[in-house]
């Protein structure tokens, strides 16, 4: 029962964040890149106030999988490292925390572009 509620919470919170994004797109027609950056910055600032971590504790992947979770992870890493190593940590911590995600995206992007043929966009 408990495991099930974890999935339900992830579904509802994740869905709600995406719906919020869709509402913004519907009314402003912003491009995908801008939406990604807006949510990233929102997540990062919320993490700065310690709010986003609480949302992740509550909703798990529902909060960490949206791009705002990426922003939150960057800030969380930077804050943690800054606490341990001072100003040096403030500069290294963010990227270090997200290195896995970025590296996998880059490597898989490279491999996919080698292995697959580009498709003409479906109309």
């Amino acid at each position, binding site marked *: 029962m408990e495991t099930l509620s974890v999935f339900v919470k*992830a579904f509802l919170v994740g869905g709600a964040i995406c719906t919020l994004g869709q509402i913004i797109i519907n009314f402003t027609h912003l491009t995908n890149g801008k*939406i*990604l950056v807006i949510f990233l910055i929102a997540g*990062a600032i919320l993490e700065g106030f310690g709010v986003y971590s609480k949302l992740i504790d509550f909703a798990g992947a*529902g909060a960490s999988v949206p791009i705002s979770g990426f922003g939150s992870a960057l800030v969380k890493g930077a804050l943690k490292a*800054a606490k341990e190593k001072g100003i040096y940590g403030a500069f290294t911590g963010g990227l270090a925390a997200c290195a896995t995600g970025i590296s996998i*995206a880059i490597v898989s992007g490279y491999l996919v*572009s080698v292995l697959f043929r580009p498709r003409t966009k*479906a109309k």
Partner: protein
Amino acid sequence: MQTEHKITKQNYKDYVFNKMPKSSHWKNMFWAFIVGGTICAIGQGFIELYSIWFSDQDASILASSTLVLIAAIMTGFGVYDQIGRFAGAGSTIPITGFSNAVVSPALEFRTEGYIYGVGAKMFLVAGPVIVNGVTISVIVALICMVLGVL
């Protein structure tokens, strides 16, 4: 300042806005909710799986990375873009959308070579995301240090 008939950036934008096919807001929101929620629920599944072997923190990072990998392969097969057509923000905002934004231009510009094609175009969207993300993380950390909240 601008004459009426002149095409400016703004009135061109308005023109395009008016010509765009109108799709129902409710339908868009519904699919964004369903697809976004499903991707997050799948991510939660990977977290549960990985937390058998790893710490909670690592499990979360690995789960996101797995989603990135899956979305990259789906982009290669052209499946992700098909989902994106009806899911909108539901497929853009999850980390899988970031992956799609990296892989899609990389694939598309391969004909321009591996250095200026794949290597450069890969960061069309990932660049702004990483640049803004890193900058804000450093600024927030510095502000917190100055305020002494750490």
